[in-house]
């Protein structure tokens, strides 16, 4: 059981890593997006390993199913060259900054996880769907509703900024 979990973990980590490198390194926008899809699939598998099947499903539905497709549409509609004319990041400075941006969060999160281990790290607990829903709708009800207000404002703000004013003066 332990060994198979370890093997699965390594496979998913590899998928995430390879997808991430592909998303950053490939010159074509569409290929980069395919890399992103791979990474998101891998993350979804990690959620399964963490005993959170519902979150894994949502990850597939929302990120792979909706967000990536939306980005595809954005690429098509803005007529961005799918072949990519991105500048090659060949300066040392860019690599150094990227390394820092990667190492710093890893260090901080690693520090927190190592010094202050939650009980669920060794044996993942499955939170039932019912408990999850009750958590969202009972103590966090206000936050849950507030998110809808924030989304509404963000959406209408985007419309206000993007569309032409219908009355002038």
């Amino acid at each position, binding site marked *: 059981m332990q060994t198979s979990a370890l093997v699965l973990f390594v496979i998913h980590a590899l998928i995430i890593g390879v997808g991430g490198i592909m998303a950053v390194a490939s010159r074509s926008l569409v290929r980069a997006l395919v890399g992103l899809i791979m990474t998101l699939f891998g993350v979804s598998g990690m959620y399964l390993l963490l005993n959170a099947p519902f979150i894994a499903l949502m990850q597939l539905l929302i990120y792979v199913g909706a967000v990536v497709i939306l980005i595809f549409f954005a690429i098509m509609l803005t007529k961005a060259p799918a072949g990519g004319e991105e500048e090659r990041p060949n300066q040392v400075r860019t690599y150094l900054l990227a390394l820092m941006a990667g190492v710093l*969060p890893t260090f*901080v999160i690693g*520090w*927190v*996880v190592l*010094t*202050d281990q*939650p009980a669920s790290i060794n044996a993942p607990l499955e939170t039932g769907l019912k408990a999850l829903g009750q958590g969202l709708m*009972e*103590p*966090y*009800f*206000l*936050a849950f509703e*507030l*998110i809808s*207000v*924030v989304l509404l*404002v*963000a959406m*209408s*703000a985007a419309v*206000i*900024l993007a569309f032409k*004013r*219908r*009355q*002038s*003066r």
Partner: protein
Amino acid sequence: MSDWFYLLPQAILCAGGLAALGLGAVLLRPAPGLQLGGALLFLAAAGAIVLALPAAGPVLDDMLAFDGIVRFYQLLILGSAGLSLLFASRYASLRGLAGDELYALVLFATLGMLLLAGAANWVIFVLGLELFTLCLYVLIALDRGRRTSLEAALKYFVPGAAAAGCLIFGVALIYAATGSLDLASSLASTAAGDVASFGPGLAGLALILLGVGFKLALAPFHLWAPDVYQGAPAPVAAFLATGSKVAVYAALLRLVAALPADAWQALAPVFWLLSAATLLAGSLPALTQTRVKRLLAYSSVAQMGYLLLALLAYPAAGPAPVMFYAAAYVLMDLGAFGSLGLLSPVSGDLDALEGFAGLGRTRPWPAAVLAVSLLSLAGLPLTMGFVGKFVVFVAVVRAGYPVLAGIGILGAVVAAGAYLRVLGALYFGRPVHAGQGQPPGPAAYVALGLVGALIVLLGIVPGPLLGLLR
């Protein structure tokens, strides 16, 4: 009394925002008077309920706090939104900016500020902050035909998004360290003696302070302020400078009050450095500034420094100085930016010092309120700014930070020179163009009268308000 009553002011503001958007969809060109009156009605209804609700501990599963301090700050925020709208309505309709979005976004932003001022949970804290920042991004870019307006919005948006990221990462660290999203209990257990959660907790607090410092334009993170205030339409700048800052201070005050003693000891030097840097960074550049909107932006940075001074003295002197200074700050900046908007011609906001020459004679009322606000910002006697600074300095010296009080007084003296230049231009300059700008309209006169009278009145008889705050 049911907990749900404490959600009524917020629900009314949300309904008001939706009604403003709906009105714009149903009537193609709603009368500006109808929109302004409706928005003010919703704000007043929310204010009346805030006044009437009895103080209580955290309500709604410990999501919202509602004590005397929260009530005061929420009233201040609602007043700031109402006065900004009074200043903005004719300003906006003259420039073709008075769509439904102006009123709806101000109401939604006020909702976010009320939530932040009353947040007792980190989730509400972050959501309230993001809600009003989102509205402000669009309000700053309201004049989309103007390059400077768009540039200002972008300059607020990009670092603002990064600051929001820092803030959320900080909240995540605190959650990881303490296992609680409750503001008070997570901060209390940050320092409950165990070293394991103290480190990540402090790191989280530092990141949160960084995010909050950006929103407040505290010294190392204040560089966006002059450009944004200069580019934003003047009444929007008034709202940005007053409502959003006061809401963040209300949250910061509760944060400091919830900090245990040893965490406060670790953070007090940080606050010391931040306030000294903010005072200097706000006061010194004002001296050479010839653009009045930028000058006001730097002055608002300096005022944040005074508020931080008062916050530093909070554990020793109680909340009265910081609350009184917050009220003074709101009135002064509303008066300054609001009357600047009224004095400006339609072609663009007044900015260069020469543009103000002689306006004291050609446009006596708005110029008089601008003058009173500037005198109050400079801290001259008989104004609310003087009483506020006096109360803050006394509290700071009593709390044992005499050096910081010295820096504050130095900053005030230096900045006063800059304000006097504007006053000189207003009253002793030769008018360059006669008949510039438009008549302000009755709504703006109400706002002008209220702001001017309150600054002078509370400067002469501050006793009742100070007594109330104690």
